[in-house]
């Protein structure tokens, strides 16, 4: 299905990543955005508040993030596409209803412009430390999809993709961006509506008396309905059977919760998008996502000038994790180098998939800034020279860490 022309703000823009994501949501047909402003995600909400009323998208500033995400879920069950936008502290509040959304198999999109944490952290500067929270933040077993764009153009493109994936797999989709990409201003091309592919909602169209809201199609995803259609919906966050009715014995739990996990895991091949470059004959592969993958480009370039065979693997889709790709590469390469703006999150999943066949090097960063590309090239160089197999994750000592911990940090008055 093609996008609706009235929803698409076709043109060439010079805008930041936040605004581009907002325009992407409108193009995807998002008809309700509920949010509670929080730096550095506010511009995305503002963009939708400004343009939304002109294209029939309703916005509401809710009283808090619990309210925002609850309103989004309500809107989806009323039959429209909906999203919410937040950052660190707001994201923590939303965890309750992310699990609820996953349990109800509710297609919705959450844009998280990550900032420095923990807690209030550094509100105006970048971070990538919510990656594990996006996967494991709500209680119980569930799977969802997380995407990490690295430019304003991608913020537009992948917000549309996030909506499409949400509809296709009836699950929450997280756009795990960060302050740098959110506030980066670049050229963004918004094409004509007929160039934009939109996944329609999988509405049930059979006889009302036969509708089972959680009875899956062969791809493990059930058809959805909306309130007010006379289907007598019984929808609950309790473990439920195909009718939606609560069940509590272990056999039922094994059957119904299993599918929430399997519908993503068994469709991984169709969901995951990676960008891979020169990995065929590489000694070292840099695995990165979001803003770190843009910084890594320079680090890789410097290392190549030194004659090192280095490839790059960019995780556009971070969750579900591309286990098979890493397992496959681990058989061929000497080491993986993982720069991320945290003290080790995705790197542990890389190590998990390596099974000790390749070394794994973390280039940490505490946030409020991005990596120095020279650190990345140095880490690549030392990983390429290392002949020993080293167990676990090796932490690379960055220039910043050396300054802070070896020379000492003098507090300014």
């Amino acid at each position: 299905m093609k996008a609706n022309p009235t929803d698409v703000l076709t043109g060439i823009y010079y805008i930041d990543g936040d605004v581009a994501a907002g325009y992407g949501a409108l193009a995807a047909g998002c008809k309700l955005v509920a949010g509670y402003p929080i730096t550095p995600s506010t511009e995305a909400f503002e963009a939708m508040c400004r343009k939304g009323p002109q294209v029939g998208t309703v916005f509401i500033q809710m009283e808090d993030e619990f309210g925002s995400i609850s309103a989004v879920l309500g809107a989806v069950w009323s039959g429209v596409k909906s999203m919410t936008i937040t950052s660190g502290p707001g994201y923590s509040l939303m965890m309750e209803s992310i699990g609820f959304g996953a349990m109800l198999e509710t297609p919705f999109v959450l844009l998280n412009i990550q900032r420095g944490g923990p807690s209030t952290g550094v509100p105006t500067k970048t971070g990538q430390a919510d990656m594990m929270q996006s996967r494991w933040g709500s209680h119980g077993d569930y799977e969802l999809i997380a995407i990490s764009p690295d430019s304003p153009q991608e913020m537009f493109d992948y917000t549309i993709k996030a909506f499409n994936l949400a509809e296709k797999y009836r699950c929450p989709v997280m756009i795990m961006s960060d302050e740098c990409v959110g506030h980066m201003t670049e050229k963004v091309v918004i094409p004509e509506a007929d160039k934009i592919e939109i996944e329609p909602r999988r509405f049930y169209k059979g006889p009302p008396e036969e509708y089972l809201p959680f009875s899956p199609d062969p791809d493990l995803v059930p058809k959805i309905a909306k309130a007010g259609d006379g289907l007598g919906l019984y929808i609950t966050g309790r473990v439920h059977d195909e009718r939606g009715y609560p069940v509590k014995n272990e056999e039922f739990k094994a059957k119904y919760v299993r599918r929430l996990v399997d519908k993503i895991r068994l469709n991984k091949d169709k969901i995951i998008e990676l960008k891979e470059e020169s990995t065929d004959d590489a000694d070292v592969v840099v695995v990165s996502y979001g803003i770190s993958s843009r910084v890594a480009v320079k680090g890789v370039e410097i290392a190549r000038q030194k004659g090192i065979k280095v490839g790059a693997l960019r995780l556009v889709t971070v969750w579900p994790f591309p286990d098979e790709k890493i397992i496959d590469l681990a058989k061929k390469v000497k080491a993986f180098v993982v720069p991320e703006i945290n003290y080790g999150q995705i790197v542990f999943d890389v190590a998990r998939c390596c099974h000790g066949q390749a070394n794994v090097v973390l280039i940490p960063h505490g946030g409020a800034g991005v990596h120095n590309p020279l650190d990345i090239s140095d880490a690549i160089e030392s990983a390429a020279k290392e002949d020993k197999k080293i167990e676990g994750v090796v932490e690379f000592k960055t220039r910043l860490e050396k300054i802070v911990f070896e020379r000492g940090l003098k507090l300014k008055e």
Partner: protein
Amino acid sequence: MNSIISAFSKGIEKSGIDRKKISMPSDVPFNPDVVKALGVDYFQIPRGRAIAFGTGLKLGNPSLKVVPVAGDLMTLGGNHFVHGARRNMELLIICVNSFVYKKIAGKPIPSTQSAFSPYSTFEEPFNFPHLGNSCGAIYTARWTALHTEELADSVAEALHKHGLSVIEVLAPGPNYYTDIDSIELELLKFYHENSTIKNNEDPKNVAIVPDEKIIVGKFTDKERPTFIDSYNVQHSKILGDKFTPHGGKNG
């Protein structure tokens, strides 16, 4: 609880509204058979989020009649209630208040007799109608589980109101009590002896106070623009032809 559900169902009947258009987000777990009998769409949502979830349902499809049945209304859902009333979101909130009184030494004192307050309650309850009224609700009423006819009439009336309505229902919460039969009977007797109907009473005078009669009735019934009305007026004024009003007159 059963008497409230049948009064609710009777209220829908009296209102003449199509049951299929009614959505009931609630943090109270309802039996599937009860929901089926009511003929509405039911969503059991995380505790306290009924009003926020209902806000999304209403904004997404303004032709729906959304009736959040709230258990944890003023605890987890307090902020949603206060802001829902302020923005006059079109919702009919049914707040089941399981606040229970018991006679000790001849005086009625508040007592929830739950596992969480084995030595009786000592905290003051909210005055819901007053709170709702002062935050901007356009319709407030209170009934007990005994006043089923009045409750049904209130539901029928409030379903036709444009804005946030709140009906507080005093009822024992069966899940919390070990000896439900005796408590329910004792409590219904208590409601019978200790409640008095005062329609149009100023909501600030209807607090539930030990040793005084519980005042029930309809307290607030007024009109003011709903969230969707104001949203449409504001954007039409500024954007003119570029703006298509949301939801027609159903807001």
